[in-house]
């Protein structure tokens, strides 16, 4: 009898805020040992669904809910959070706040101690988690010393160690590089073999196919995902031959470290970036890509060697002064949105630089945000926020544009808009430096791919030569482009 009840079931689930529905009539179920992947772009309700599955909606977040969520026979939506957490655990999108201890061991112990378990049992579970999540060597390390990927593993381990039968992971792939995705798959496999039922939300299916037992598409995203695999129409042909391109940025035997006590993060980098090109900077997390990009806009100065931007030595100028020529679009728009309105936000740069607002106006138009001009930035969706960041950068009319992971938003419209901007900038003789994990996008949009690993340049050349070379992609730990994945047999890492 009990076997019939087993499973996390979603029946006719619909949810919305303030009268506006986010999704309606969802039906699926998860059995122990299965993984269900829920795909949807930003704003489609992934986090909302995750909250419904654990009872955070309606217990802590107000929303209009209809339908039922049942875990092993218990009604989630009408039970308290305390009760629900025993059955359905969750790793939030922002897993940082779920880490409470100063060290790895402490954090694992935290949730366990709250359960009132005996000291021996707590010890036992901690040891289990350390072994199964590859955390043993980090046992006494301070949490803030660990990389993002490790911290995520810790968050997952801490959620599982209290032994819920089901686990929801809200967009765990967001900040992972390809190697991280492979490790995440291992963890998913292990959890499944332990009999856990998993629900994983993601922006795209890529990377999760081998571990997904079922796939649920939110908000017509199936249609859009298919569209994404077709080539994006660019205004200018990519292979434009600019004979008169100048050197926009040069790196001359550049070494960089944060302080004398620490290792060099960048080693002996010598590069010349030409104007009128789009250069993709790729490589695993922690390899130094963002650091390298920050050397271009003067946020960091080289410890050894020289960086010249448009002929100027970066050591002589502050970042704010270089902002006149180099615009940096950061990865997390929430970090710097300060304006009361979209207009305030987009004119922040020009105001600081003493420029007029013509470029700001045009930037808003091009990014399709003109009608949101007077709205507060917080009311925008993630895709729109990213577009706003880019518009703010374009408003300063830079010679060089740096984009840090522009594809994280995964909004098809935004990606197309970005691709169009890139080709326009190239036609005007400007330079675009794009840091990305997304090999498909790099293939479509960039003229040159530079791969960084361990602080050194390990590959530099034509996108097709690098990204369609199976061995190279595997050795460098890059995300295989869709073209490669179609013909390759999945290798279990």
């Amino acid at each position, binding site marked *: 009898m009990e076997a019939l009840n087993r499973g996390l079931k979603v029946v006719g689930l619909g949810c919305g805020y303030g009268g506006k529905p986010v999704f309606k009539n969802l039906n699926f179920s998860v059995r122990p040992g299965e993984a269900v992947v829920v795909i949807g772009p930003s704003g489609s309700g992934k986090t909302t669904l995750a909250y419904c599955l654990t009872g955070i909606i309606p217990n802590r977040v107000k929303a209009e809910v209809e339908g039922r969520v049942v875990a092993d026979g218990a009604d989630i939506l009408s039970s308290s959070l305390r009760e629900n*957490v025993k059955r359905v655990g969750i790793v939030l999108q922002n897993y940082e706040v*779920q880490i*409470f201890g100063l060290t790895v061991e402490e954090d694992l112990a935290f949730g366990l101690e709250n359960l009132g378990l005996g000291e021996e049992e707590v010890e036992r579970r901690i040891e289990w988690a350390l072994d199964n999540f590859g955390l043993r060597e980090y046992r006494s390390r301070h949490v803030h010393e660990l990389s993002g990927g490790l911290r995520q593993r810790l968050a997952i381990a*801490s959620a599982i160690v209290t032994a819920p039968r089901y686990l929801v992971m809200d967009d765990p792939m967001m900040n992972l590089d390809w190697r991280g995705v492979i490790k995440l798959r291992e963890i998913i496999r292990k959890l499944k073999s332990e009999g856990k039922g998993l629900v994983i939300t993601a922006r795209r299916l890529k990377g999760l196919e081998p571990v997904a037992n079922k796939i649920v598409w939110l908000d017509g995203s199936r249609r859009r995902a298919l569209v994404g695999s077709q080539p994006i129409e660019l205004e200018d042909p990519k292979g434009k031959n600019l004979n008169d391109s100048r050197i926009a940025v040069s790196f001359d035997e550049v070494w960089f470290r944060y302080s004398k006590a620490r290792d060099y993060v960048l080693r002996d980098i010598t590069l010349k970036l030409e104007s009128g090109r789009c250069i993709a900077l790729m490589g695993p997390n922690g390899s130094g890509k963002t650091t390298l990009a920050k050397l271009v806009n003067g*946020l960091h100065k080289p410890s050894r060697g020289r960086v010249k931007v448009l002929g100027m030595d970066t050591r002589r100028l*502050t970042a704010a002064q270089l*902002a006149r020529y180099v615009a940096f679009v*950061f990865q997390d728009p929430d*970090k710097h949105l300060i304006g009361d309105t979209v207009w305030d936000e987009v004119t*922040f740069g020009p105001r600081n630089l003493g420029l007029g607002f013509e470029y700001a106006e045009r930037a808003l138009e091009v990014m399709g945000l003109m009608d949101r001009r007077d709205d507060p930035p917080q009311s925008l969706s993630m895709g729109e926020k990213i577009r706003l960041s880019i518009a703010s950068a374009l408003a300063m009319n830079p010679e060089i544009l740096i984009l840090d992971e522009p594809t994280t938003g995964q909004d098809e419209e935004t990606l197309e808009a970005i691709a169009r901007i890139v080709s326009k900038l190239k036609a005007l003789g400007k330079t675009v430096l794009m840091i990305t994990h997304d090999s498909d996008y790099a293939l479509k949009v960039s003229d040159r791919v530079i791969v960084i690993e361990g602080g050194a340049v390990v590959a530099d050349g034509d996108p097709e030569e690098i990204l369609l070379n199976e061995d190279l992609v595997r050795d460098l730990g890059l995300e295989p482009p869709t073209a490669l994945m179609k013909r390759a047999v999945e290798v279990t890492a």
Partner: protein
Amino acid sequence: MGFASIVALAFICKDILVIGLLAAVAAATSLFLSSEREFVRTGLKSMIPLLAVAFLLWSFAYKWSIFQQYGGYSGFEVGVFMALRLFLILLASLNFVASVKPSELVKGLEAFRIPYRAAFLLSLTLRHVYTVADDYRAIKEAQMSRGLELDKGSLLKRIKNYVPVMTPLLVRSIEKAEELALAMELKNFSFKRRRVASRLKLMDAILIGAFAAAVALAALHYLVGVL
């Protein structure tokens, strides 16, 4: 160990020691600089101006000070004494901050009967110091990249320029606090629960005993005139 450090900290501040004894203790403490040497050294370096000021100030101004017990000593001797004492306190503090684990801190404080709520908040703050610091740096970089000059201009202008950095930081911190509250509920957190208390180990007991004895001796010697 953290427990013992708290005791050490407390007693050093209380006593009035003779210069010679102080110097000896200082030497002994610096030998015990094991882990976190870098952190302590950097901390001390930034304290040098403070020490210099203390030294000079006390050397010349002691006659007007509130603490009157310097009979016999004069001028630079007082300065040296004060600077050394400050140095000791700093050393102990730095070592403490660098080596204590929040859980030990919490347990130590619990033994002193400070409510669990306060102790937990303290440990959580420690854990999130780094996250807030990271956020601060990220926001600063983002705004600097948009032309915001942060270290130039008059004092007033500088303060004004920091607003675009502080506003997002505050907003983020508040959002984070809300998420933290949610996360705590998800971990079945309860202020009422009495956590598993670990027994005081032998090493701790010995150290506490030793420090207590030292305190007692010093107190007897200086305050009571015995020994």
